[in-house]
C-alpha cells in the first residue's frame, strides 16, 4: 500500500543521504522524496512517498526514527492528510493553442507560466494522482518535458508535526 511519511530532521550535510541510503540498503521503495528547510533553518522537513506491506511500513518508520539526525516521523497515511505536488510541463506552442488542451488545462486548474515562439510551460499543483491524470489526458506525444517535485504532505486540522 502507498504511504506518505513526513519527517523532521537536522538540516545538516549528509542527513539526506542517511535517509536515502537507508531506503536503498534495506530494499525499501521510494516513489518520491521532497525536502527543504522549515521556518526553523536548523530543521528540514521531508516527505517520502513509499509503498510496502504493513510490516515493511512499520520497519520503515522504526528505521527512520533510529537515524540520529531524524527528530520526528509521522506516517501521514495513518490519518487525514493533504498532499500536493508541483509539476511543470512544457509543450509546443501550437499544441498549447488548441482548444482541447485549453479545456484540459482549465479543468485541472493549471496555468501557463512561460511562453516563447515555439514552447509553452504549464504549472499545475495537485495530488500526485491528479497530476498523473493530467498527463494521461494531454497524452505523451504532446509533452516536451515534465518536471515533478514529488509530493509534499501535511496532516489535516490539528495533526501537526513539530518539535
Amino acid at each position, binding site marked *: 500500500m502507498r504511504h506518505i511519511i513526513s519527517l523532521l*530532521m*537536522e538540516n545538516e*550535510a*549528509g542527513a539526506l*543521504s*542517511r535517509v536515502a*541510503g537507508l531506503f536503498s*540498503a534495506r530494499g525499501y521503495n521510494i516513489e518520491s522524496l521532497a525536502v527543504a528547510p522549515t521556518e526553523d533553518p536548523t530543521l528540514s522537513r521531508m516527505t517520502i512517498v513509499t509503498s510496502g506491506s504493513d*510490516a515493511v511500513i*512499520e*520497519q520503515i518508520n*522504526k*528505521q527512520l*526514527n*533510529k537515524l*540520529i*539526525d*531524524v*527528530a*520526528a516521523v509521522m506516517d501521514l497515511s495513518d490519518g487525514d492528510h493533504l498532499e500536493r505536488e508541483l509539476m511543470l510541463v512544457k509543450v509546443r506552442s501550437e499544441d498549447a493553442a488548441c482548444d482541447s488542451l485549453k479545456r484540459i488545462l482549465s479543468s485541472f486548474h493549471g496555468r501557463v507560466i512561460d511562453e516563447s515562439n515555439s514552447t509553452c510551460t504549464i504549472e499545475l499543483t495537485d495530488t500526485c494522482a491528479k497530476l498523473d491524470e493530467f498527463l494521461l489526458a494531454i497524452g505523451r506525444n504532446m509533452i516536451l518535458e515534465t518536471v515533478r517535485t514529488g509530493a509534499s504532505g501535511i496532516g489535516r486540522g490539528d495533526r501537526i508535526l513539530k*518539535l
Partner: protein
Amino acid sequence: MELTGAEIVIRCLQEEGVEYIFGYPGGAVLHIYDALFQQDRVKHILVRHEQAAIHAADGYARSSEKVGVALVTSGPGITNAVTGIATAYLDSIPMVIISGQVPTFAIGEDAFQEVDAVGITRPCVKHNFLVKDVKDVSVTIKKAFYLAKSGRPGPVLVDIPKDISNHKTDFIYPGNVCIRSYNPVGKGDSKQIKRAVQMLLEAKRPMIYSGGGVVLAGAAAQLTELVRLLGFPCTNTLMGLGGYPATDKQFVGMPGMHGTYEACMAMQYCDVLIAIGARFDDRVIGNVEHFAQVSRKIIHIDIDPSSIAKRVKVDVPVVGDLKLVLDQLLAELRNGKQKPDASDLASWWKQVDEWRVKGGGLRYKNSTEIIKPQYVIEKLYEITGGDAFVTSDVGQHQMWAAQYYKFNKPRRWINSGGLGTMGFGLPAAMGVQLINPGATVACVTGEGSIQMNIQELSTCKQFHLPIKVLSLNNRYLGMVRQWQEFFHGNRYSESYMDALPDFVKLAEAYGHIGMRIDSPSDVEPVLKEAFARKKDLVFMDFQTDPTENVFPMVPGGKGLSEVILAEDL
C-alpha cells in the same frame, strides 16, 4: 588557553578516561599523533593493520564495559578499518573511531589518500561526523562517546580534516550533551510489563531466549534471577553466551544453526517465548516461515524498537533498557502472588529432558589417533577452569568453542557473531588482554582465520601480550568444506589450504613460542605447559581431524525442528 584541534582530541580522550587507543599513523593524523606523543595518559597501541586496530578496540569494549577507541588515517586507513567497524556495528559494540581526513580545502579534489570516510562508513556506523570547524571538535567527540555507549550501543566515527587538527581554539569539554533528535529509552511501559508477566505465568510450555543485548546491558544478573524465579528453560544465543550460566541445569544450550537439539526443539515448540535482547536472526530461528508454522505467543524485550517485529510477529513488545525492564519484570513477579503452574512446568521439563536425551547432548567420537577439535576445546575449558576470556575467529572452530566452552559469566566469550569476520580473534584478544591484565586470554582460531590478521603477532610482541593462540589446523576452510560436503556433492572448491606456513617457525620468527601438536595424548600436557607460561604468547598449532563436522546443524533455509544430528548422516 588555546589548543590545536589535535591537542583537543587527546584532551577529550583523557576527559573520557580512555586508557588505551589502537591505531596506525599516517599523513592526515600527524598532528594528532604529535599531540599523543606529548602526553602519557592515553596509551597508544600500534597495530600492524587498521582492521586489527578496530578489532582490538572492539575486544577491549566487549570484555569491559568501556567504549573502545581507534585512531586511523585517511584513505586506506579508513577503508582498512571498515571491516572492523562493520563487525562492531553488527554486534552493537560501543566504539569511537577517529579518522584523519585530507584538509578541508582539498576535500572533493581526489586528493592523495582521500576517501569519503563519512559516506563509506554510513551504513555500518551508529552515526558519524565530519568536523569542519576546530570549535566543534570537543563537542563532537563528546557526542560520539555519548552516542556510542547510550541506547543500543554502536560504533561512531569522527572524521577530522588535517587542517582542523592544526587550527587553534579554546578548549572546553562539555559536561554533557543533548541531542534533540536522539532520546534513548529507559524503563519499559508498565502496562506491557504486566501483560508480559501474565503471559509468562499462564504459559504451559515457556521458553526464555536471551541474546547479546543482555550482555551489553550488563543485565546478566537480572536474567539469571528471572530464569531461576520462573523455573523456565533458558537458551543463550551465540552473542548471549555467558548471559546465563552454561553449567546450570536450566540452561539448554545455544539455539540455532549449531545449537543443541533441545534448544532448537524448545524454541520451536514452546507456547510462550520471551526474547530478551535477541533479534530472531536467521542463524537462530532458521527459516522464518517454518518457525511461524507453530503458533506461540512472543514477548520481545529490546532497547531498539526496530529489532522488534522485524522478522517475526510479536504479541507483547517491550521497548527499554534491559536492565531496567528485567528489574520491572522481577518486581512485578514478586509483587504478584501467582506462580507458574507447577504441573504444567513439570511436564514441559519432562519434554525438554526427553529432547536432551534424544539429542544426546553435544558429543563427538574421540580418537587416540587423531586430534578431535572438540577435545581441544574441552581440555581448554578444563585447564582454564572455565574462567578464561575466549576470543574466536569465524568458522567451525568458533562453533566448537561456543559449544564446548561453558561460559558462566558474561563478557568472557568474544566473537564476531553478526558479520562473521575472519581475522577477528587475535586482534580482539589484544584488546581483551590490555583491559584485563593478568587474565587468561585464549584465542581459538583456525589456520584460515589466523592468517587474515597474523601480522598482529608483532603487536603482541611489542606490547607483551601473553595471549594463548589455539589454532585448530585442519588444513581446510572447515565450515566451507562442511557445506561443500553436505550441499555441494563433496566438491571442495578452493577450501583446501595448501602451502601452509610452518606456524611454529612463524611464531618464533615473531619472537613467540610455537608448538605443534600432532597426537591426542599431547593435547593436555601442551595446553598445561602453554597456560603455565604466564608471560609468553604461545601459538599452538593443533593438527586436527580435517573430516570433522559441526553438529547439530540446522541447514540454511531449514526450520529449527529440521535439525540434523551427527548420526543422521
